Every structure is written in structure tokens, then in C-alpha cells.
């Protein structure tokens, strides 16, 4: 029995939207290499719709798969719709992740918000879905993601 299902392995081995958009309208990174996972998402926005999204990730198989699926989910959505994407949705789209890897979906969810946050800052817009989001919360998250028990607890809450 492999540790990941076929869909996770597919997104890990054949990641969608891998790369970086030049002159992106929004660019966000979340996590840190110290923690073991860091994701960067860049987006292109037209008329409040995300027309393109790309990712780069330092991390394990599920981190790469989570960021791949996150970009797939974002493209074609309005900013508000993209902000409504949850980590639970990312896990479901991947057909499930091992418990110890749930934090990867949390990171991907935050990376989406970090990219949109940057877009909002640059374009002077405000979105209800960004309320309370701190793009520099990596240090806090560090403790969460690197502590197995703490992660399990927080992920349950997020779900």
C-alpha cells in the first residue's frame, strides 16, 4: 500500500501549472524551508477573475500535489470564489491525504490567500475573504506544521 493515492501521485509526478508568472498581478509565498514546506503562488487577474495561476513548491509529495491542485481550483474563479477555497476542499479534490500530511493542504490554502493578498495590496482592493489573514504568519504556522500533535489538533479545527 503506497502512502499516497493515485491522484496525489499524479499531481506530484505531473504537477499542473508549475512555474512562475512573469509580471504577476499577485505573488504570495507561505511556509518556510525550515519547516519542510514552502509554497509560492503567482496569479494573473482580469476583471476580478483569476485567469492564470502558477506554483513553485519546496516540500514533500503531498505539498507539491496540494499546490498543484490549488492552482487548478483557482483558475477561472473570481477572487471571492478563490478565497472561499478551503483546505478541506483541497484534500477532497486530491481524494484524501494521510493525517500527518493534512498540514500541506493548509499551506496550499494559505498560499492561495497570500497571492490574493498581494494582489489586493497592489490594486488597492479589499475582500471579505481576506479578513484576519496574515501573510506573514509563517512563524506561527511553523510551530503548528512542525509539531505533529499541534498540527493534528489545528487541522481538525480548520476542517
Amino acid at each position, binding site marked *: 500500500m503506497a502512502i499516497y493515492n493515485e491522484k496525489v501521485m499524479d499531481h506530484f*509526478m505531473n504537477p499542473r501549472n*508549475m512555474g512562475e508568472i512573469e509580471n504577476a498581478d499577485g505573488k504570495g509565498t507561505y511556509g518556510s524551508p525550515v519547516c519542510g514546506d*514552502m*509554497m509560492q503562488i503567482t496569479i494573473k487577474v482580469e476583471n476580478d477573475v483569476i485567469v492564470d495561476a502558477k506554483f513553485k513548491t519546496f516540500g514533500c509529495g503531498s505539498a507539491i500535489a496540494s499546490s498543484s491542485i490549488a492552482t487548478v481550483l483557482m483558475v477561472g474563479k473570481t477572487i471571492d470564489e478563490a478565497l472561499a477555497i478551503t483546505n478541506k476542499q483541497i484534500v477532497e479534490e486530491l481524494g484524501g491525504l494521510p493525517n500527518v500530511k493534512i498540514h500541506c493542504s493548509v499551506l496550499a490554502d494559505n498560499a492561495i490567500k497570500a497571492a490574493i493578498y498581494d494582489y489586493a495590496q497592489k490594486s488597492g482592493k479589499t475582500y471579505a475573504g481576506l479578513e484576519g489573514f496574515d501573510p506573514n504568519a509563517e512563524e506561527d504556522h511553523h510551530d503548528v506544521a512542525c509539531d505533529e500533535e499541534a*498540527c493534528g489538533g489545528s487541522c481538525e479545527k480548520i476542517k
Partner: protein
Amino acid sequence: MRQVYLDYSATTPVKKEVLDVMLPYFSEKYGNPSSLYTLGQESKDAITKARGQVASLINADPAEVFFTAGGTESDNWALFGAVDALKKKGNHIITTKIEHHAILHSCEFLEKHGCDVTYLDIDCEGRVNVEDLEAAITDKTILISVMFLNNEIGTVQPIKEIGEIAKKHGILFHTDGVQALGNIPIDLKSLNVDLLSMSSHKIYGPKGVGALYVKKGVKISNYIHGGAQEIKRRAGTENLPGIVGFGKAAELAKENFDSHVKHCSDLRNYFVDKVLNNIPNTYLNATMDGRHPGNANITFEFVEGEAMLLSLDMQGISVSTGSACSSASLVPSHVLTALGIPVEKIHGTLRFTFGDFTTKEDVDYTLEALTNIVNKLRQISPVSSEKGW
């Protein structure tokens, strides 16, 4: 698809010669070694033979070898047995930060039950400083436990020097020899080692069997209580096929020692050389001087270990991570942490361990796959040598 196993320090396949001698002891020669009739006595003789084979590999007296259920039990027995036997003398243990969890978690348990434990640092080459060790000795010190050879980075510890210090101060000296057995010479007649843990499945023997060497005259308390097996030192009906297999594996390890070491180190050296030259931003961790012949522990900057491991696995190659990310724990390797490797680089570390069945073709296949995988993952990674961490 080609299957390449490069995790011989995790476990080894049982050699055919070993399996062949084990098989009759399952359903033909199944007698209980404690039984007095012929069937039982034949089993007893088989264990006596195996004891001699294991003793011969470490140049010990057969009466000093006690079979256990494996390396972990041997480590637990050594620690708990020594602490209990010496509780009137003191309660202080000296060990290192890079021990196997069978030692570290046993020490943590003992700390909860009144022991003080000193965990020694290692230097950048992966070795304990013997002066630090001697300085840590107090009048309460009852046991020194320093592993012979580290399982992750493969470095050999200064066992002879530590043994001399232990003897000078009259302190028991235990060493976890699980990774050392069969891979570097162990001559207990020339080392002041009182207790040495061994495991069968690291030397092409079966899993679930090991041994503890207890030097003649050294008194430690029993750990497994029950019947009179193992001269009343370790209770429980003997794992007869396992012990027979361990004995044969030990005999083969002794016979083939030189060719084993040469084979593994030739392939390992070739591999390390190619990786460091062909893949930029890669580092070998710990010194090559005095190291497990088959161990290579390499950091690949800007990529994560589990992603490399999984990608290699997709191509039939089995390796392990220095980081514990692939297992249930997300805590980075305590050994690489003690070696002073930054955490982000620990996450990008793989351990390759070569063994008797590894071929040059396997290594070449792995080198090609590894180069492509690291390149691909570096393209995916937001960190790089240009952008930095």
C-alpha cells in the same frame, strides 16, 4: 522495472545459505531446546553452534553471548539491567545525542525513574570527543553507552579510547553494535567493552533475533523474566530458526568480511564521487574517514527528501530520508541536527546504503534517475542557488 534496494542499513535480505539452514527448524527439528529428549537436545545443540558462530564474529567467548529478540531488546536490557544492578553505586549515565532511539528513549524513560543522563555532542565529523566524555564522568556515573557506528551517517566512534576511559574509572561500557556488526572489525578481546548489542537482520540474517554480549564477570540484572533459558539470563523459549539463521549469517559475515567491505565501499565511493561531481549543491554529511563501508548520507540543497524518495521509488529505487518526513513523525533527524546541519538542509537529505547484492549497474541506474529527479524537483522549488533559501 528494475528494482534497486539501497537501504541495507534499514534491513538486509536473508541470504539463501541462511534460509536453507533455518528451514528444518520450523517443522522438522522443532524441539524445545529445554526438553531433555533427543529432539530437544538437537535444538539445544543448534543454539550452541549459533552462539559459537556469533561469538567468533566479535572475537568473544561463546559463554558471553546471549540471544535476544533483536537490537532493541539488547539495548534495553543493557541499560535497564546495568542501572538496576548498579543502583547502589550511582544513577548517572553518559550517552550521546546520536544514539538509536532504542537507547535514547530508554534513557528518557530512565530519567523519569531517577536517573541523570548526559547526552554528549558530536563534532562536525560525526564523532564524540573523548575528553568531553571523560569530563562528564561523576562519582555517580555507572554506565557509558556510545554506539559503535551510527546508523544514519555511518561514522565509527572511538570505542577503544572510550573503553580505556571507562576501565580507568571503573564504569561499565555498553556499545550499540547493531550497525557495526559485520561492517567493521569488532575484536572484543582488544576492546574494553562490557556490553555490546547485536542484531541479525542487518547482516543478512532473519528479523526478530539479536544478541547481547556480556563480558565475563560483568553483572547486570535480567530484563526478560521467566524460564531458565540462556543460562538463566534471558527467559523465553528460544527463537530457534532465528538463532540458527543468525549464527549462519554471522559465520558468513566473518568468512566474507574483506570482500563485503571492499564491494560495498567500492560502490559507495563511486556513487558519492559521481553524485558530488554531477549534481551541483550536494554535500556528503560526516567524514569518509572511518565510516560504514556502505553508507552515503547526502544533502541535496533546495529540494525535499520525501519528494526525492517517492520519485526514486517510482523508478524502483529504495532509499531512506535523513528527515523523518516520510514516517509518522515530522521531527527532523536528531543525528543530522547534532551534526550541525541546518534544518532546511536536513529536509533535503537522503541515506543510501549499499550491500552485498548491489551491482554497479544498480548504482549507474540510480545515478541517472537521481540526477533527473533532483533537476526536476529543483525546477519545481521556489528556492535555488540563485535565489537562496
